[in-house]
């Protein structure tokens, strides 16, 4: 049966939280493994192992920080609506900043007589992702 917010049980919620609690360390570890594979494929073992080590440190540092900081704990537990809103706003700000930089760099590349790659593709991905999210969220809310 499809669970909705109305039919979701406490067990469902707790299981969801258990998964969410490990999301940031898991993403850090996955990114580190990605760096490892990319570095080894690119014949740059120093980058590969440094990248993996750095991301493991980031993941562990987040777990340690979550024991002392209410904000970090909120980002880990995802129970606090205010922290979740702050996270969403910060994510929007970061995404907008990246998109602005991509657009600016696209213009710089075109002005230098280039075709704008790879910034044109990055900008297109950002635009399409926004429209898809807009339509998706429009039907969910």
């Amino acid at each position: 049966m499809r669970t909705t917010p109305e039919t979701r049980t406490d067990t469902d919620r707790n299981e969801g939280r258990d998964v969410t609690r490990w999301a940031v360390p898991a993403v850090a570890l996955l990114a580190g493994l990605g760096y490892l594979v990319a570095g080894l494929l690119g014949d740059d073992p120093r980058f590969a192992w440094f990248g993996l080590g750095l991301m493991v440190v980031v993941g562990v540092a987040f777990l340690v920080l979550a024991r002392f900081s209410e904000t970090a704990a909120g980002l880990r537990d995802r129970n606090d609506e205010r922290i979740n809103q702050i996270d969403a706003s910060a994510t929007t700000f970061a995404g907008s900043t990246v998109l602005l930089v991509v657009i600016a760099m696209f213009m710089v590349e075109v002005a230098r007589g280039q075709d704008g790659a790879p910034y044109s593709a990055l900008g297109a991905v950002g635009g399409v992702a926004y429209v898809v999210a807009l339509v998706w969220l429009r039907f969910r809310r």
Partner: protein
Amino acid sequence: MRDLRTVRGLSQAHLGQAVGVSRQTINSIETGKYLPSLPLALALARFFDTTVEEVFHEDHA
């Protein structure tokens, strides 16, 4: 909301734990920096065994 909490001798951390948010969030609500969602407002009202209007009208007056 601060009055309702302090009359009961509760800390912000205790109240936050009771309704599932952080101490910082309770503080932000009490200082008017954060407007809680309807579910959180209802949870706070239920915790104090009163109405949403009673919990929040002092803060927004």
